[in-house]
């Protein structure tokens, strides 16, 4: 059973003064008979004007307790009306923060009663409302420079004002103090103006949530703001969006906190983070149960934030030593630190003697470690990707750097790099591109030669050699291998959600910025490849000179042919990829148009890459489309950036095919009606079909021509 304890009043030994006795009597009387509250109060109010601060404090605290009791609405309202003036005097005259805090809490308790009374009374009391306005103004000014006590109370009053002055339930059955809202005010009220009240509420809401950004924030006030705001989201969904957006922007570890020491600062960050997490989980749970779209639409945002929060916490936790264990044992402490050190786990920079595999080269853990015998190839691909992502996220840059350095050092002790690219005859020494590809397929099959200590060259020099000593063919081969791997792994991962999530966890923000993609989704790699071939590898000057023979040109064509194979393999499901690719090609060609260069004006001349690859894709579409592919074909025709005359004329093949003629004509009609630049070419095709006297299509083509080229139909009939 959980041992959860609470304490109530923690002060017990103060002597019973007159005011305390009167306050206790009042509280008892109210609890026993709520109807007697007003009568009992009349004996208490005079105590508020006494000079003794402890009297004032006791009475003010008692009033807080009285309003927390279950009173009837009429008793509560009568109390509120009678107390407003004394409370105002107390706020003005008493500078004690404890008293002021209690007064502000009482005001927040009675605000809905006063609001309802003023809004609903047949002859509303404007003096009462003015009094309330004066009190509010006073509280807002105290809030600006007040202590945390005042601020915590003020935030509560602000919350009650926002609740009363924003959209809420209109159901009369829910007409309690908590549900008082802007609809309580009739539109013909003599002096309350709904829009003014709403504007005030909105400004206050903004002030509440922006409190988290103020300098010298303290966690007691910060947590009060967070819970108060979340309560607002729950009770007034109209405030949800603005509150939540600010809450999701709040980063406790970056906040300007008021702390006497570093440990106090850390403590407050921990408290604030906890409050944010509990609050968001609470909203999330409410949103999943709610049918209110203002709440349900927030779910993805909150989930994203909580995911980030969890990964940040995991990162911090991974740096901490475990709490459990005997802290007094120095040996135990030392061994844990060694584990956390990370770099210490790299046991050796030299390879074990004898023939070695690539697997041995990359294995930096001790051979006695049980992990070294684990067969990683037995893992499903998506599990392996998840593990690698998580591993990379949690590894420190230093750790990765030292591990890479160790592998490089081992590698250079094994292989005389200078001869690596040229020593292909044996097929064993050096890592040529073929071996590199095989490495991915079967690590253990490729044996490396034994170490040769004389060939150890310094790391920087080797890196340079690796890059420059590769022949063009080798570079092209490595490049196409990389592209193949990218396409293969994208096709192999069936569970795309998993793939997308694992990529999100890796934070692709930098990459996304470069490719102008908002997020990494299943087609982002297509966009990446399309840009590599249309712009990334394109060098207009070199292109003109080389006339297709440069390495860049070869690389571009390799990417394109692989993209084409990918799209054509399953055209219907990869239409998105095809459209992304074609748009990129068109734009790539468009920005390379040189106005000074003489052009024939031909489509294939101005848009060479787009014209070539769009035609290839078009041929495939036309070839494989069947009669049920109308939506697919129309989308293709509407979304590719430009249609050449040849492409449009190729639609004739479909129109004259008895099984597909309806589809062909529909696509032509679509072009005529909705793609004006293609209209003339499409009408030419219609005209040709009409003149061919094909019985099946005759009527439809005639109708079309009547509308767009009536002269042709007249000629024919003559």
């Amino acid at each position, binding site marked *: 059973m959980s*041992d959860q304890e*609470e*304490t109530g009043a923690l002060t017990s030994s103060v002597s019973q003064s007159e005011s305390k006795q009167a306050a206790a009597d009042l509280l008892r009387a109210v609890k026993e008979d709520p109807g007697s509250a007003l009568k009992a109060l009349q004996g208490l109010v005079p105590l508020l004007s006494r000079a003794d601060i402890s009297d004032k404090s006791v009475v003010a605290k008692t009033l807080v307790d009285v309003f*927390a009791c279950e009173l009837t609405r009429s008793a509560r309202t009568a109390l509120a009306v009678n107390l407003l003036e004394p409370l105002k005097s107390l706020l003005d005259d008493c500078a004690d923060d404890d008293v002021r805090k209690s007064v502000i809490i009482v005001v927040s308790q009675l605000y809905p009663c006063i609001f309802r009374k003023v809004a609903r009374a047949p002859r509303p009391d404007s003096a009462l409302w003015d009094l309330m306005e004066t009190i509010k103004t006073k509280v807002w000014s105290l809030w600006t420079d007040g202590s945390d006590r005042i601020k915590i109370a003020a935030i509560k009053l602000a919350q009650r004002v926002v609740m009363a002055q924003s959209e809420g339930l209109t159901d009369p059955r829910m007409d309690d103090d908590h549900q008082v809202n802007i609809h309580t005010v009739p539109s013909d009220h003599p002096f309350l103006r709904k829009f003014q009240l709403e504007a005030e509420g909105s400004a206050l809401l903004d002030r509440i949530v922006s409190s988290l950004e103020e300098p010298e924030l303290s966690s007691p006030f910060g947590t009060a703001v967070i819970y108060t705001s979340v309560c607002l989201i729950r009770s007034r969904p109209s405030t949800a969006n603005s509150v939540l957006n600010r809450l999701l922007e709040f980063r406790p570890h970056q906040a300007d906190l008021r702390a006497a020491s570093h*440990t*106090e600062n850390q403590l407050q960050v921990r408290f604030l983070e906890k409050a944010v997490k*509990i609050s968001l989980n609470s909203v999330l749970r409410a949103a999943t149960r709610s049918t209110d779209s203002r709440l349900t639409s927030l779910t993805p945002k909150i989930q994203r934030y909580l995911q980030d929060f969890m990964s940040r916490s995991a990162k911090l936790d991974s740096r901490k030593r475990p709490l459990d264990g005997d802290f007094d044992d120095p040996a135990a402490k030392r061994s844990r630190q060694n584990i956390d050190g990370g770099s210490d786990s790299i046991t050796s920079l030299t390879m074990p003697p004898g023939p070695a595999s690539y697997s041995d080269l990359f294995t930096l853990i001790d051979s006695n470690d049980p992990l070294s015998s684990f067969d990683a190839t037995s893992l499903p691909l998506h599990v392996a990707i998840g593990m690698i992502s998580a591993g990379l996220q949690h590894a420190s840059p230093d750790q990765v750097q030292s591990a890479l350095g160790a592998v490089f050092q081992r590698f250079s002790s094994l292989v005389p790099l200078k001869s690596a690219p040229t020593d292909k005859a044996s097929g064993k020494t050096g890592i040529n591109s073929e071996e590199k590809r095989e490495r991915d397929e079967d690590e253990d099959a490729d044996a490396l030669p034994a170490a040769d200590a004389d060939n150890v060259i310094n790391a920087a020099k080797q890196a340079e050699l690796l890059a420059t000593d590769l022949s063009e063919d080798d570079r092209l081969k490595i490049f196409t291998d990389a592209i193949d791997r990218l396409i293969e792994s994208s096709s192999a991962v069936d569970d795309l959600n998993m793939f997308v999530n694992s990529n999100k966890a890796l934070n692709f923000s930098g990459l996304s910025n470069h490719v102008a993609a908002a997020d990494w989704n299943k087609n982002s790699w297509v966009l990446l490849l399309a840009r590599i071939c249309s712009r990334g590898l394109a060098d207009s000057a070199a292109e003109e000179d080389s006339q297709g023979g440069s390495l860049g040109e070869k690389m571009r064509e390799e990417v394109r042919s692989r993209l084409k194979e990918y799209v054509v393999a399953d055209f219907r499901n990869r239409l998105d990829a095809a459209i992304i690719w074609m748009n990129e090609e068109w734009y790539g060609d468009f920005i390379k148009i040189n106005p000074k260069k003489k052009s024939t004006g031909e489509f294939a001349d101005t848009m060479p890459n787009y014209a070539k690859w769009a035609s290839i894709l078009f041929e495939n579409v036309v070839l494989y489309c069947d009669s049920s592919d109308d939506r697919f074909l129309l989308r293709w025709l509407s979304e590719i950036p430009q249609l050449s005359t040849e492409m449009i004329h190729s639609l004739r093949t479909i129109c004259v095919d008895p099984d597909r003629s309806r589809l062909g004509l529909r696509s032509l009609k679509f072009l005529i009606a909705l793609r004006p630049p293609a209209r003339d070419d499409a009408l030419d095709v219609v005209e040709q079909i009409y003149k061919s006297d094909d019985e099946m299509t005759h009527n439809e083509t005639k109708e079309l021509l009547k509308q767009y080229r009536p002269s042709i139909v007249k000629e024919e009939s003559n």
Partner: protein
Amino acid sequence: MEAHKVLKEAGFNVSSFGTGSAVRLPGPSIDRPNIYEFGTPYDSIYNDLAEKDAKLYQANGLLPMLDRNRSIKTAPQRWQDHNMAFDIVFTCEERCFDAVCEDLVNRGEQLNLPVHIINVEIKDNPEEAAVGAQGILDLAKSIATTSNLDESIISVLNEFEKKHPRLPVLHAVSFF
């Protein structure tokens, strides 16, 4: 309940609650706990367990614990089912802290009464409970002697963590 006992003995006005859906006590094996509804008197629970296997429950400390509990209050109460308000709420596990904070949000802060919620993480065994209860008593005394709690709670908790490094704390201000 150990904390309830020491706070009560020190003169504080205390109530105690559980936050789960039922009272769960260890049974003869891990998959067979003894489950009682909140509100079942400690007396009845004590007698029931004594009848089931007095030797086992005496040996694992359950019967002595229930005996202690029935001298403190009649029956276990559930946090979510009560409507009392407090100045300070102590919880002894993080999940209870979460449950209390979330419950206050669910209640809608209708009473407008500010409350300090403090979690002192205590392992659920008799030895740690005794140490933790003394820690909570220390904290309650520090709080009782503080005049402006809202401003000084962080330094009070900081000092507490320094003095009791094995009792990590959490804190929040919310409203009933």
